[in-house]
């Protein structure tokens, strides 16, 4: 006795539906896969939060402004890697004792934002301030990335 793959009665009776069956298999495969598979964003999607980030640029600096309400300074980490600014950290849950939360909207846990900077920056001169829950990171542009005025003498 050999094992024969089970086929749904439908597609056996109506041969023209076979291709729909295979399409359905494809769809099933697609839906069974977690949609973040392979992209490595799992932690970001499900155990963290995503603070809003604005990026500005002027002649001398690139400035990132991030909304990080209620953090402690020491829990914020800023790093620079191959022209990508990475801001990460963790907001720890308050030890709430016997407090019962009747409504929780605030996110706790880890966050990580990374943004590719439009120009090269001088990594040694990066500075940051944290005030009123807003983190401002100032990244001075590398000399070669600054716009230069070129004088052309018309004769």
């Amino acid at each position, binding site marked *: 006795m050999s094992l024969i793959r089970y086929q749904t009665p439908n597609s056996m009776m109506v041969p023209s539906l076979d291709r729909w069956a295979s399409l359905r298999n494809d769809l099933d495969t697609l839906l069974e896969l977690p949609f973040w598979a392979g992209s490595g964003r799992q932690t970001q999607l499900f155990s963290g939060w995503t603070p809003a980030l604005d990026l*500005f*640029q002027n002649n001398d600096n690139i*400035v990132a402004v991030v909304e*990080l309400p*209620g953090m402690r300074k020491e829990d914020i980490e800023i790093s620079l890697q191959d022209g990508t600014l990475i801001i990460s950290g963790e907001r720890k849950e308050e030890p709430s004792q016997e407090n019962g939360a009747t409504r929780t*909207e*605030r996110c706790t846990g880890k966050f990580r934002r990374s943004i590719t900077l439009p120009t090269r920056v001088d990594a040694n001169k990066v500075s940051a301030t944290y005030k009123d*829950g*807003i983190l401002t990171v100032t990244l001075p542009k590398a000399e070669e990335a600054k716009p230069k005025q070129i004088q052309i003498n018309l004769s």
Partner: protein
Amino acid sequence: MNTLVRENRSSNGERQATEQFIAPVATVLENADGYTLEVEMPGVSKENLEMWVENNELTIQGRRAMPSVEGTLVHRESRPENFRRSFELDPSIDAAKISAKIDQGVVTLTLPKAEQVKPRKIAVA
């Protein structure tokens, strides 16, 4: 007794007609002594924060003073609107004793329950 913080979206008053606000994210904690309300208002300093109780409704409004950065905006995710949100107060709350502080963009309000509604032990005579 979880009615404290039934949110009031409908009665926002006529001031809203002229200005758009966004509702800040809030967390409510309850214990025997009262409630704690944490409201996230990044970019709001102590000076730009207003709170009032009217008709048993607590309103928190914060105006944002974002750091002014010279230059052009390359990428934007933040919202420019100011914050405003109203909460209906549970009758057990003693509105005269509400206190608040703001630290790094998070407003923490302490809303104590009135003495007569606090749980208490009754000694057997």
